């Protein structure tokens, strides 16, 4: 049967709305973000899950709790620190405009080669991919024949998807992850991964859908 992982990006935060880089900064969900998480929980309420995991950051933890709520039984959300967002170091809290002004060279390098470009005071994408993939592998190994919800972050989910599909992670920016989106990967053993669904937000009513970028 295999392990089916429901990867969920956390709901919107105030910083998402302002387009600020968050990384390890522990920014809580906005009221809109909580609504988004509830909508996903409603969508998944008939499914039976073997476990719920989240990163250690509160926006992911609360999203996981809100998604689990309609399950109608007490659910413990397990924390896996390896799922935490990429550390953006000195960029955390800045908007993309501010980063362009203050770190134009570093930003250009990061767009071109995120895998081995270290953000000042932060992580490389290779480091993120290594720890997030290890965290997911541990979950897959623990639940070989179950459905599991894993609430994490844009960077974590993209690096995991890119890794299990064998993509060149320097092309990571070609993947998009929306708040409270659902991505499903089936694992028939760790090395046989099939991407079933990607960045699906059909559960979000029109009021909860983010604007399409121009």
């Amino acid at each position, binding site marked *: 049967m295999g392990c089916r992982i429901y990867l969920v990006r956390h709901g919107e935060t105030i910083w998402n709305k302002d387009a600020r880089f968050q990384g390890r900064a522990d920014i809580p969900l906005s009221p809109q973000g909580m609504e988004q998480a509830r909508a996903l929980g409603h969508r998944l309420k008939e499914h039976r899950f073997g476990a719920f995991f989240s990163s250690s950051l509160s926006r992911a933890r609360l999203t996981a709790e809100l998604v689990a709520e309609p399950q109608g039984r007490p659910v413990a959300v397990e924390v896996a620190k390896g799922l935490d967002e990429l550390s953006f170091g000195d960029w955390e*809290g800045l908007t993309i405009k501010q980063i362009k002004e203050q770190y134009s060279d570093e930003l250009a390098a990061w767009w071109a080669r995120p895998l081995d470009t270290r953000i000042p005071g932060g992580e490389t994408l290779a480091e993120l991919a290594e720890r997030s993939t290890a965290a997911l592998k541990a979950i897959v190994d623990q639940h070989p024949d179950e459905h599991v919800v894993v609430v994490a972050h844009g960077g974590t989910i993209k690096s995991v998807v890119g890794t299990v599909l064998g993509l060149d992670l320097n092309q990571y920016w070609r993947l998009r992850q929306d708040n409270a989106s659902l991505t499903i990967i089936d694992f028939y053993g760790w090395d046989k991964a099939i991407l079933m669904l990607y960045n699906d937000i059909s559960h979000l009513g029109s009021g909860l859908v983010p604007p399409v970028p121009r």
Partner: protein
Amino acid sequence: MIHTEYRHGGDIFGAARNMGGSVGDIYDFSANINPLGPSPLALAAIKDNLGLIQHYPDPRCSELRRALALYLGIPEENMLPGNGASELIYLLARVIGCRQVVVPQPTFIEYAEAVTAAGGTVTAVPMREDNGFALPVVSLKRELKKADAVFICNPNNPTGRVEKNAVLRAIVEEATREDKTVVVDEAFMDFVSDADQCSVLPLLPKNPGLVVLYSMTKFFAIPGLRLGVLIGSVPLIKKLEALKDPWSVNLLAQVAGTAALSDREYMVQTRQLVKQEREFLYRAISLIPGLSAFKAEANYLLIKISRDTINSIQLAAQTALRGVLVRDCSTFDGMGDRYIRVAVRSRRENVVLLEALRGVMEGV
């Protein structure tokens, strides 16, 4: 120089009253408290020992003093815990009978207040901005010849500058030779990366004229409980003990302080976070037109306003309207109205501070 109004940071209850909001809506950068909040071990110890408040606190603070002795590397008989360092400053000013006291300025205002309240006179020795607010060692030594005692805050509040203990040694040794008192307030020393090169505690055994003030309020984030320690020669401690309220250190402060001192992981995390966020804030503030920050070693930054269309009182009032409290430094003696001080907090909070400062400065 008697001031009756409240002249410190951290008055969030007053600010919430003025704004008509609740304490939870306020971002307080006016008090320099560890952004992680209290150690989880301290909070757990308080909860586990709540029932004990039906008893008197241990007037000797035995367990706390044992923990402090281990942490600071100082014998228990050399320390006197108090209800915050402030209680000890006032007590000390009364007991050492200081008629004439030297205080470098700008610095924490309570030294001058305590000396004045005890009937003494304060000579201020200016620390100059163009000299990086360095401790004026030569003029301090000269003034000390005419005085009984000197109070030094290291790292200094509000400038954030820390002096190496090699710099202070000359003053301490001279004071010992001439039978005078040097009080060094190390309330923020725990935040300093190379504290072992800055703290004067190692000078204590050979210098009976040295008194060190240590605070648990800031680094261990328990200002609501109050906990400070005075460290000095045994005869001085005995004299102070005789005049101090025996139960001034409440039971929960003793319990929380003892537990916090065992939480090494929290101490490491605090130092890492504060260093990282101090550097982040320093850089970001320097990019705001009209503001510049001074290099600092503790958990706060002094900021100079270079635009003459706004002063520190107005800036603090404007950020308060945005729910962000900063410390207007015009209440520090000798500082004028060009400086504010901000605490270093978490990235989430620091971004709110930066937005408020940017927003105000854009409009002037």
